[in-house]
């Protein structure tokens, strides 16, 4: 049986770490002979994605037990449903932790699905708190940009002459769709912003083809992020994906507007 343990060093005498996402090393220990493999922990630059990366690493190495100080119930519950045993509140050295696990020294009922009512309720409320914290964090990154966008739409409405905007959107379906798709490709961020800008464009007389194309390419074409995408997937993949997404957005936008009859 392979047991994954986050540790502060590359040996069995290293201390068990509290979290998978912040550990410098991940040890995958064979419980039969205590042979082990040392893996580097996820880089801190990953931020909130580090925990998932660490899990991906140890599960890829075939670990079916994880001994750790703490892991969010949001993560441990689906793991356990998939047959991965997760034991939390583990401390001491890696060797001690593995031996204790082998000897059945952990209260596995506490860590598995067989929980008492109060523990279940405590874990449930912790899950709620975790989900609320995560949502608030996602919102906290959205709010500054959205505030800026809303203020900008006010400026746009007050100072941008409609005629100037409408020179980009001539009324020709093809040209307007291309113009909208181009604007959407240049912009990025939460799609909520594209709804606010789209609504403003519609109020200023831009037709629905251009607005739909902008909203579609906003979420499918990422010109600004292209350098990062290239570093991850390569130049060819990135260029093909973005060009195809742009080209597909043109007929798709026209069909969307035709089939829906525009906004209700």
């Amino acid at each position, binding site marked *: 049986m392979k047991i994954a343990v986050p540790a502060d060093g590359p040996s069995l005498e290293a201390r068990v770490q509290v979290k998978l996402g912040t550990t410098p090393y991940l040890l995958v220990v064979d419980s039969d002979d205590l042979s082990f493999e040392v893996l580097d922990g996820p880089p801190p*630059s990953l931020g909130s*994605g580090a925990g998932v990366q660490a899990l991906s690493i140890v599960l890829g190495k075939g670990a079916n037990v994880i001994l750790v100080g703490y892991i969010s119930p949001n993560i441990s519950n689906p793991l356990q449903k998939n047959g991965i045993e997760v034991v939390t509140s583990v401390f001491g050295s890696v060797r001690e932790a593995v031996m204790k696990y082998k000897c059945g020294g952990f209260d596995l009922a506490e860590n598995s699905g067989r929980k008492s009512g109060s523990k279940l309720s405590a874990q449930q409320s912790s899950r709620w708190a975790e989900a609320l914290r995560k949502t608030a964090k996602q919102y906290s990154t959205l709010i500054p940009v959205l505030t800026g966008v809303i*203020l900008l739409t*006010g400026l746009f*409405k007050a100072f941008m002459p409609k005629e100037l905007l409408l020179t980009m959107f001539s009324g020709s379906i093809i040209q307007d769709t291309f113009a909208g798709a181009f604007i959407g490709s240049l912009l990025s961020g939460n799609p909520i912003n594209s709804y606010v800008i789209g609504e403003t464009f519609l109020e200023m007389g831009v037709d629905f083809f251009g607005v739909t194309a902008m909203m579609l390419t906003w979420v*499918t074409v990422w010109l600004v992020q292209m350098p990062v995408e290239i570093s991850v997937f390569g130049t060819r993949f990135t260029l093909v*994906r973005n060009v*195809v997404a742009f080209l597909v957005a043109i007929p798709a936008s026209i069909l969307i507007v035709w089939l829906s009859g525009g906004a209700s």
Partner: protein
Amino acid sequence: MTKSIIDGKPPQKRSRLRPWIFPACVAGIYLILLVITPDRAWVGLQAAWRVLIQAALPLLLAFGMMFLLNMFITPVHVSNFLGNGVGVRSVFFSAAAGIISMGPIFAWYPFLKSLRKKGASDFHLANFLSHRAVKPALLPMMILYFGWRFSLIFTIFCILSALVTATVVSLLGRQR
């Protein structure tokens, strides 16, 4: 010792105030305009206020939807979906993973990079990326802005476009 699967960069400290630079700049423009042309600037502020009021309810709904998704969907579900299945099942799973994955795309890049190194196909990676265009948490907001019929058709076409894009990428996107 096994090397780390992804190439990490040194951690960069991000100021908490950094995201506010953009709105602060726009607010600065308002301040200047309030001095130069107060009437027009006031019209702009009123327009921005109306947009904010209009967006309040949809934003609240989006918060609720995001909370529910965060409550019941975790990154573990996403990684399970992306790594599972063959044939049509795998198409469905990578699409589902893209749809339920939340947060900025760059947060998912390291994970996708490691999947690619483990042999995930271009089709499934492109399918995941393209299906991120489908945002169930924002659907109520879109419906309030543009109506349910448009939102439904828009969502269906996002899925169809994603499948077309993933297919073409798998045919043309591989580095030779």
